[in-house]
């Protein structure tokens, strides 16, 4: 198995905490990201998700979420990449190396959150097929918060040590149990993510998938781990069966031949 629950909670690295009750959907984070990372006008690394408005006038609710790469503790994109274009920094960021990428898009299929996006405008020669959030290493390495977090006017986004943010998140739930869903999304989801989410509405309404605590990566690696023994064993069994069947068939054929010989003597004489 992968990391145990206790391990997931004590992971030592940077993370985001997003609180949907504080988000006013102003999108300063999105513009900040675009400028900081020089994202072209028709591309983005950060999205608004959620059902938005819910209910019927005048009984209404609204919830939305901004999200970008979840920077999983055990990233599926990394595990799915056949050429090692993804890496996970020990302090949190999941990074992508365009020079290694061959554009196979396995990472896009592997990510349960739909984060890596294919750049259809760029061909094989230009490389950099995939784009996604980097956690702004150029900023965090000099002690600044990522661009999206730094500008958030309502502190709906925060940045810090994952363990500290988890403590903060649980403290908020405890202080206002009537306000929050009693769960920090990302604490255990997919083996733990570095984008932690607090919400007043069910997480599904924010557009978050219901993933288990075991990352696909771990599942696939476990499967990969037993592939060879499994193949050898299964091969041996099949070989045995084949041999057995063959032997049985030979015996049967021999017996049938005898029967034929006995049943059709006339034929023989014809």
């Amino acid at each position, binding site marked *: 198995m992968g990391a145990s629950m206790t391990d997931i909670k004590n992971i030592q690295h940077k993370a985001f905490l997003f609180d949907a*009750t*504080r988000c*006013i*959907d*102003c*999108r*300063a984070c*999105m*513009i*900040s990201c*675009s*400028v*900081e990372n*020089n*994202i*072209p*006008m*028709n*591309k*983005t690394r950060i*999205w*608004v*998700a*959620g*059902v*938005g*408005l819910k*209910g*019927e*006038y*005048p009984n*209404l*609710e*609204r*919830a939305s979420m901004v*999200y970008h790469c979840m920077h999983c503790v055990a990233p599926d994109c990394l595990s799915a990449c056949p050429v090692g274009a993804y890496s996970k920094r020990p302090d949190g960021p999941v990074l992508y190396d365009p020079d290694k990428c061959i554009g196979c898009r396995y990472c896009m299929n592997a990510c349960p*959150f*739909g984060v890596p*996006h294919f750049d259809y*405008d760029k061909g094989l020669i230009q490389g950099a097929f995939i784009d996604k959030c980097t956690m702004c290493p150029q900023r965090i390495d000099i002690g600044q918060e990522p*661009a999206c977090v*730094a*500008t*958030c*006017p*309502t*502190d*709906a986004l925060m940045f810090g040590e994952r363990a500290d943010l988890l403590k903060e998140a649980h403290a908020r739930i405890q202080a*206002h149990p009537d306000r929050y869903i009693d769960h920090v999304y990302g604490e255990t989801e997919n083996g733990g993510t570095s984008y932690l989410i607090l919400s007043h509405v069910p997480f599904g309404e924010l*557009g*978050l*998938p219901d993933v288990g605590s075991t990352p696909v990566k771990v599942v696939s690696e476990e499967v990969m781990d037993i592939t060879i023994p499994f193949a050898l064993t299964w091969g041996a069994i099949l070989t045995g069966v084949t041999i057995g069947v063959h032997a049985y068939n030979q015996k049967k054929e021999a017996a049938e031949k005898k029967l034929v010989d006995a049943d059709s003597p006339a034929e023989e004489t014809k």
Partner: protein
Amino acid sequence: MTKTLTRRDFLKLGGSAIGAVALGEFIPPLVAKAARANGQLDASDSGYISSMCEMCVWRCGLLAKVKSGRVVKLEGNPDHPHSKGKLCPRGQAGLMNTYDPDRVLTPLVRVGNRGEGLFRKASWDEALNIVAKNMQDIKQKYGPEAMIFSSTHNLSQPLFENLLQAYGSPNYGTQRSLCFNAMTVSNLITYGMEEPERDYSQLKYIILTGRNLAEAISNSETGELIHAIDRGVKLVYLDPRFTKTAAKAAEWLPIRPGTDLAFHLAMLNVIIGEGLYNASFVSQYTVGFDEVAASVGQYTPEWAARITEIPADTIRRIAREFAAAAPYSLAHNGWRTSNFVNSFQTERAITILNALVGNWGTTMFPVGTGTGGMGTPPQPAYPRVSAQRLDGVPWKYPFVPLQYGVFQQLRDSIVDEKPYAAHGWLISRQNPAMSIPDRRKTLEAFGKMDFIVTTDIIMNDTSWFSDVVLPEASYLERYDPLSMVGDPLSAVGSRAFLRQPVIEPQGEGKSAMWIYKQLGTRLGLGDFFQYKDEEDYIAQQLAPLGVSLNEVRSRGYVNLPASHQDIYKWTTSSGKIELKSTALDKAGFDGVPKWDEPPAPKSGQFYLLTGKGARQTQFGTQNNQLLHKYDDEPGLWMNAKTAASQGLKDGDKVEVTSDVGKIYVKLQATQAIRPDCVYLQPGFGHLSKGLTTAYGLGSSSSDLHVTYTDPISGGQALSQTFVTVRKA
């Protein structure tokens, strides 16, 4: 993920896939040299320079990240109380205003017909001479009053007003009557100050009457509200729309438009009737309690329920809760309060409500006044102005301060040529073609002019109809004067922050300080502009404080001497909070607020509501590509059930008709609005083809707005326009 901003949303700009900041490639000799000298930039001209945002009027402090002469990122200045290290979406997108591909980079002189958009480039010298000659000719032929000056809130406004007064025209147009006159005039009458400061630190209960802080963002105040809610402060929110602020409220009351006054009168009724007011505060610090008590006796919650469509029990409960939370409650006085002809009295009721429960010195404080010890260049006395003002102040609107004016009345007087005709219009950083109601009439007013000159950074809609366009340097490229403490939007404790250039201007852009001085000099008014350049002006401001400009440039602000302020002193005629205004009484208006029923839509008509979205500021930001990138498409909100009953569906193109105009716009069927209202975000529907991003986007509410003026505050009643909607 379910409802995401899809890839399609980022293709709106088609081929213009320019990198956000990959523009401009020159080395900035002067700015970089100065910034290196005071330690903001390193040897390779990289680093952060402190300045001030101008994407709205909240005036946040910013830190501009500069690399080799280009701004590559803006951050909120943590030292500035309005930004606290953060910028809103508009502030974040600010550098795209500077790098807008549609910037006007040289002075332009019209060669085609007005509105045709044909201009030729001109030198500054030629353009300024043309402007000065026209202004002189108008003055000689018709008198200085034939020249209109108009501008919107900005740090160079004192110098613009200086030019106006030195030239000798009484005709001054500002955005104020289209925005906050009702609120500020009411505060002046009640408290003797434009806008008391609000303090959220001890707040327990807040009522927002249409103040959509989550979308009409005032950076620090929006943050303070959300943090207050986080702490458990109860927010009661009155708005016919379920805005993003409504989504954060403990209680959203979809009140019938135009009836906020009835709600607040009933609040006063309960608080006085049940003895919930702060008797010692009222007797010590207010005048006119008995008159208010006698007047509001009739306004029971049951009475208000019929008018507002809010249940009587709810009003009664909220009044009790509000009083119980006092003195840590706050009835927010709003901001753009130009809604109905009764908006002034609505504001009065709110100011009285706060005073009755004693929310003073806890959630409300007086604003600082004075110059903060700063100096100004010497200048002679202004010439005496004898001509009447065209905007009716004070002869028609005696309570409107001269500096506010009544812009829509000014426009109407230009069209009617009464009491006299105007012949010239100097417009600075303002877009009346978009902002004044009944746009057709505003264009008619342009037609009355012999000469129109506009200064702006882009070809805005008013520039499009101008004879000369003077290119301004953007807020990242220029100095503005240090603002005085008396300006409520600059009252940020004991510091004055500096707007300074963080890069060299694009093209030939010049600061307003330079432009006004050049014009003044050419008009023979050089004595009113006794400064060599921008730096000399600011140095003269700083001189009495003994601080050098270089120090201020590197720190970003100057510390002002502490001034003692008596919290419990009001500059009204009585020296107290005036629950009853004798001045209003004497002028024949209601000295205590009384119910005043505004007009309502006829059957088949809707209230037309307008109001800000989080990513645009009034009429000036729609061409910003970064804001456009993440903004929603502007459409006409209509209640989904109403739409269905009219055979309309989401996305339909509809024709919207008012008494003065007609527009075509995409329908947005939503649950988030009262069935008797429609809503349109203002600022779209630009006329200028020189705005290549904004042109063709949405439609303008100014084409529909009918001109109605509140007789006391001069505020335009922007929600008093009724429209019909049918499938186009």
